[in-house]
């Protein structure tokens, strides 16, 4: 799996959200995208996920241009920063629905297996409106993995969760990251722990792209100050 970003630019009116970004992500593992509010993380992830159009530049995922949205949607799973599901659907119905939207047909047992991976197997009959924020996050992960994408893009998946839940969510991603490319974003440096590669964004520019957490944190804090 190779993601190639070449001279990516995104403008919102006169504001440059992404400024000529070029980078490569190669192979499976956990890739951390670190940046403070307004750094361009969400814009970058949304462009990769096909829900926001780029202004200019090129993106290729395994050689396929981002313009080929149908093919790209097959390859990526996007977990937005803020999301929920239809409140009156059950956990099982929700997963089943998104499996169908992703062109997959699962047997009942297979749906339970997916729920078990995110530790929601006992809540399959629960309605969405009764779930906690963390449970919804875990269901969100189940929803995006149900189509078996090669790349998972998760925008601040641990934001607003307590320490225990953060660990639980991250462990799920680490498990997925063994054979898939997982891109996680965070605005807190500590949330980058365990990432194989860290990319630090600042005002739409890449200011660090490497494997050393301490260096990434230093760059991040320098700019934050």
């Amino acid at each position: 799996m190779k993601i190639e970003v070449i001279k990516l630019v995104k403008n919102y009116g006169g504001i440059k959200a992404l400024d000529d970004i070029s980078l490569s992500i190669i192979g499976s593992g956990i890739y951390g995208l670190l940046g403070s509010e307004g750094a361009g993380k969400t814009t970058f992830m949304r462009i990769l996920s096909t829900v926001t159009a780029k202004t200019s530049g090129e993106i290729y995922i395994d050689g396929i241009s981002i313009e080929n949205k149908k093919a790209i949607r097959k390859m990526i799973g996007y977990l937005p920063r803020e999301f929920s599901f239809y409140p009156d659907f059950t956990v099982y119905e929700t997963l089943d629905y998104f499996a169908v939207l992703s062109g997959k047909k699962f047997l009942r047992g297979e749906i339970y297996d997916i729920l078990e991976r995110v530790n929601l197997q006992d809540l399959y009959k629960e309605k969405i409106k009764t779930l906690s924020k963390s449970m919804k996050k875990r269901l969100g992960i189940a929803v995006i993995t149900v189509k078996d994408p090669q790349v998972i893009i998760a925008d601040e998946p641990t934001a607003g969760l307590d320490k225990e839940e953060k660990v639980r969510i991250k462990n799920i991603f680490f498990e997925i990251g063994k054979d898939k490319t997982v891109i996680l974003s965070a605005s807190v440096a500590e949330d980058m722990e365990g990432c194989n590669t860290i990319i630090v964004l600042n005002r739409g520019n890449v200011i660090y792209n490497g494997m050393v957490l301490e260096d990434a944190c230093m760059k991040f804090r320098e700019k934050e100050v």
Partner: protein
Amino acid sequence: MFGKIFSKELKQQFRSFTIVILIVSAFLFYYTQFIGDLKQWWIKPIPLRTDTEVILEKREKGFAIDNKDVEKAVYESMKADYESGYTLRIRGISRIYEKINNSQKQVLKEAIDEIENKSLSISYNEFEKIMKSVDNALGGNTSYSEKYYLSIFAVQGPYESEMKRYNKILKEDRVTNAYARLFADYMGVGVGFFVVFITAFTFIKDRRYSVNEFIYTSQVSSFEYVGGKYLADVLISFFIVLLAAGHATFMFYEFSKLNGDPISYGAFFKYTALWILPTIMFVSSLSYVSQLIFDNGIIPIIIQFILWIYSINMDNKFNKYIIRFNRIVPYSEFKTFENSIFINRIFFTLLSILLFFIAVKLWDKKRVDNFSR
């Protein structure tokens, strides 16, 4: 995939409050307007056996009929029943003269005597009390039941000409086709506005529940997603009208059984499909397009309300999306309007399909260039 989106949308709609609004409003229109008309003028004329001059004359001149007129008419009716041994009974949407037995005749005699004895001094309350006991003794649902006092006098012209008109409707329309046009008129007015409450929030809900980005990034095609929802929304509304059409057919089946006149069982369903379905499709398509343009569910309701006001008057212009035909006439009299109605329905069906494809395109555009965060 299409089937699943369709079934999930159905499920979601049936769990929502908007479906209750649509069912209640559709049946309110059905009962108050359509059934109301049937019970005001009835279907098959009956021969008058009493002196109804006062009532008929007043009705013709548009004067109010007062309690004394009612008392006089009902009293005359009792005398006629007593003499003939038959009373008028209301069964559903039918009025039938039914034989009464001797003890029932005796009750009538006593009531006639009581009214005659009291003569001018009888109050309306006393009159009502007497009538209630007469109605009960005759088995209920007679013209002595308060709600049916004037049912015997529900005539629009002389019996012979009314019968001639009815026989024409029977011959040309097998009764129900003529009434199905009135049904489609009233139901069209109802669903022509209330359907928008079902369809105005279809995509807004995805955003409100923050589920839209999961859908945008799934593999579902825009046509399948919008189409699945559209089909579900249209069929829900259509199904509700079909329920009313089914009820109307049943009422006329009972009418046919009692009167022995053949009816067309498909008439209400036919006019529902030909006149009302295009209306439902148009309201749904337009509200899809407007909610996707304005990203708001209230604007489609406002737009629909303005169009509804414009379309509900009776001139049946080409550009009005509701068919108005508030008349019960035989096919030969309807025929002159048939072509223009047919063209109107074709036009609005095609326009609805066009708007549907515009909605697919707009949803597809939103999917790839969605600025909401």
